[in-house]
């Protein structure tokens, strides 16, 4: 037996940039590992997951639901991304399977499939607007909304946590590209990279 070493998609990618400071306009960091499950099920069963998740699956397009342990992002009419930094993915899948016993659904672990990047700071919108055609203005993409969209030449899942904080969930092999594009778009601002050496 060996000690398991999780090698996150962006480990080592912070080298060579400025560290965040009090006057950073933008701070970019890779978020630590979290369990992720991609759930596909008929939305009419959304309330059946209340016990497993603590809330009904959000059925309004591009919305999110959050409990103390679990967050859920609407990805499509019958597709959700369930995220937890406290529960194991296998436990999440098991809870889901109890709730959906006998129904047609698919719950697949995708924790390793994605990298998660946080971007925050007063110039966050300026950086994002250089890269995504999505309108990230508060009036059309407010706190608590999410979208599968495009960032430069990569697909991303974008989630707004507050006025100036977003999470980008990116397919693992695209993570380095997205990471570098974000830092590059922040060149004209004071951009700090968490974990920078």
């Amino acid at each position: 037996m060996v000690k398991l070493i999780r090698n996150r998609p962006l480990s080592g990618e912070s080298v060579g940039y400025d560290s965040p400071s009090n006057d950073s306009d933008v701070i970019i960091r890779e978020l630590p590992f979290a369990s992720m499950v991609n759930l596909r099920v008929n939305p009419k069963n959304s309330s059946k997951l209340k016990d497993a998740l603590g809330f009904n699956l959000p059925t309004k397009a591009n919305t999110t639901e959050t409990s103390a342990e679990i967050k859920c992002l609407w990805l499509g009419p019958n597709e959700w991304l369930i995220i937890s930094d406290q529960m194991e993915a296998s436990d999440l899948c098991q809870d889901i399977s109890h709730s959906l016993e006998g129904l047609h659904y698919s719950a697949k672990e995708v924790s390793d499939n994605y990298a998660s990047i946080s971007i925050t700071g007063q110039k966050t919108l300026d950086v994002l607007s250089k890269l995504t055609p999505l309108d990230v203005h508060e009036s059309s993409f407010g706190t608590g909304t999410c979208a599968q969209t495009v960032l430069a030449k990569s697909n991303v899942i974008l989630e707004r946590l507050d006025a100036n904080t977003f999470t980008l969930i990116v397919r693992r092999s695209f993570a380095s590209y997205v990471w570098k594009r974000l830092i590059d778009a922040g060149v004209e601002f004071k951009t700090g990279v968490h974990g920078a050496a």
Partner: protein
Amino acid sequence: MVQAFRLPDGGKIDRSTPINFTFNGEKYQGYAGDTLASALLANGIHFVGRGFKYHRPRGITTSGHEEPNAIVDLNVASGEEAYREANVRAPVIELCEGMTAESVNAFPSLKYDIGSLNQWLARFFPAGFYYKTFMGPMAVFWTKLYEPVIRKAAGLGRSATETDTARYEFQYGHCDVLIAGGGPAGLSAALAAASGDARVILVDDGRELGGSLLSDPAIINGTDSGSWIAEVLGKLEKNPNVRIMKRSSVVSWWDHNFLNVWERCTDHLPAAAAKNQTRQKLHRIRANQVILAQGAFERPLLFNNNDRPGTMLANAARTYVTRYGVRLGKAGIFYTNNDTAYADALAIVEAGQKLVAVIDLREVAEGPNTEAFKATGVPIYANSVIADVDGKQRVRGALISALSSDGASLIDHGQLIECDFIAMAGGWSPNVQLHSQSTAKVKWDDVLGAFVPGKASTVNPSISVGACNGDYHLGTLLEDAFSKGLVAAKSANKPGRARKSPKADGRETGPHRWLWLPPGKKTYNKGGKFFVDYQNDVKIDDLELAQRESFVSVEHTKRYTTLGMATDQGKTSNINALGALSQITGKEVAEIGTTTFRPPYVPTTFMAYVGREVDEFFDVTRTTPMHSWHVDAGAAFEPVGQWDRAWYYPKAGESMQAAVQREAKPDRSQVGVIDASTLGKISVVGPDAGEFLNRIYTNAWKKLPVGKCRYGLMLNEAGMVVDDGVTSRISENEYHMTTTTGGAAGVMGTMEEYLQTEWPELQVYLTSVTEQWAVAALNGPNSRTVLEALTDDDVSAEALPFMAWREINLSGIPARIFRISFTGDLAFEVNVSADYGLQLWNLLMTAGQPYGLTPYGTETMHLLRAEKGFIIVGQETDGSMTPMDLGLGGMVSTKKGDFIGRRSLSRPDIIKDDRKQLVGLDTTNPETVLPEGAQLVFGEDMPDQDKLPAYRPAKEVVRMAGFVSSSYYSPNCNQSIAMALVKGGHNRIGEKVFSPQADGTVIEAVIRDTNFYDKEGVRQHG
């Protein structure tokens, strides 16, 4: 020489801040606030360049983006180093310290230009010159005259040869109302539109907003217009919903109000200040509503030699005098066909610029502005024309003649009035370029003598206000723009709350006379030089010639003469050309019609459209979890789709060929490992998953037991192979599909589409799990031993037979082991969660060392699978191969029912027996490796075999039998191996084929089956 042509006071320039610049190698000074054009004029320089075709001297003609003549090459210095930018317009270049500019089209110097000989040869360069002469029979003219002499003389500036090191960026934007133009109309519209919750973007191409008010101030709301502009801007800047973009132009308008706005961020800054900043941005803006407030262009007048330096538009003259404090010359002449221009004439006289005459085409010089001007005492010559211009490199005088009563001829020989500049006022043309881009039509207005916006497009509805809508009256345009601003905001469901429009007394105007083509000393068709399109050197006689030669439609006239096809897109020439055509042909202008305006509205730097998508950002580079190991191992990488895959791992000094031969051996004798993480992986879940796979693949799936794997072939509706891979049954309701690396996204998309649109009754959900798993494929007789060193679980042939999979604990890492083989040898594909991929790889490398574990790249993988005749989709297939063509007919189930592509497999063309079919080739000389892609010829088609190998393929036509799709030297077979697609190849086993090479040699080979190694296939079962 210190700005000898600067007026003692006046102008919106900062006389306390001198700015040094260089033009054609000479040092000059201007002031902060100058443009390159105004600074040159302040130094007495009108003659700044030479024409496109005849190399005639040309001067500064306008004060804006419509400039056709004052084109210069600029050394731009906003990146690491200075580099040349060709063909920029002097009137819109803001002067900055250290600026260096050069004239275009002048060799060896502006004053003594060799190409100007062309003007004496003008009669040999008529309209359509290129079309006519290039069709000529004498090829020698091409190489001796056209290319070296005429083509060299044509064109304008010289392109940069250096790399552009400046930074360019894209920025996306969204708004409820976008307003193009920040003059009085644009400002008034913005005030109204932004008075509610609407998000408003106001775009202006200048360094300061105000438009015509900057050179033609007025009283608005009882205060001077300068204060009014400041007040409006103050209000707009405080509004967080408003974005004001200066130095920005709406260059293109695409469907559904998608607009490109080109912003010059640092072009006005000296090199040091601009360094490392973004030079220009291309904003891609989606607007709910668009208001156009772009103003109008003044037109030149047509007369003999109307292109001499010193000839400029009346409004430009006013702008240079009043806004930039420039003295245009010692004595000027105004030449007008309307009353409004007298206001400009009055303004420049009041500013201290001397005028010696006003030449008025109208029979009677009358109207409110004319009357006001008369107080200056400057003589007015009514019902008169400029019949000719004296001077070559600068206007020296104008020949003034009186018109006959019908305006068709001159009634005297005229008098020469000395002057050194001529201001032309030919009336105004609303700027309808963006309106036209929106796909809306324009309509002719007889009174305005111009095209005005017609009905708005339904896809991109535009609202035009102010001068670009033909409204030149400040009072009415302020009110109209204000109300349209409210309309736009309301249409965007964000109504404005303001109710009080700005008020002004507009200027009353008197009559005009649209005499498009007045007579001259020489008439246009008898040696007169009546230039209509300055930038492309199109004269009135060219237009007339096009009519005579049947290029009558205005679109044909345009292409034949190149009218309006220069970088200024005919901003100043369009209406004059149509008016002149009208006069020549006797048709109404409305009947002649106009051409279409196309993006970009102003010439735009190429790099603005490229942005940051250069070098490492040109495309995404996808990498696997083990990528850092490959890099450290010195791997060469191969792009596969967007992936960078390890291609081979050269040792010091080792060639690719040598590395591949070395990497390929252990996979048959010991053990090799390849990073196979890039393969597409799709989870197929649901009670109908088996039925779904039956319809997607050619073979049957329902009876595949849990724990087993099966190879599948995917066709398109045409019956052609499009993807392949192994799919494994995970549980009763779940399959794990693998696809090719490059095909993964397409397969996922196709399957989701079929589920949603064709077979919604199937209960199946798909999830892409490609990147959830890192995959290392062990191949070779020692592969089990390596695996056993890392696990206590049973991976024996009994517990885990060929084409089965199981979960094991691999040194603590949960792993799925698939016993599938792409080499035909004993093989295990180890799948772990991607985060553990690097650790897995390191564990394997350590555990495998005693057993000769060798990492191999994609090139060796290609070689190894070719030894077994396994196809690669995209190499053995090109979208026209059926399973039968590939010898995989056995993969097609005839019993299970329908699947994608099934009905196509019985079409006559698919079942005929001379289709190209996949075969193997043994070269007669086993050391000779056929080039991939080499064409093959059957023996019966080879010409005159006695002459081989002197045969020269280029001189003979032979029937091609097929081509080589894969070819290698196999160190495991000790011979060259190849696969080829050969017509009817399956029935030609044992026959010879020939491959003539470009060097004249011919490679001979014998057709065989595709399985070169371990024919019985025992090794993979080991």
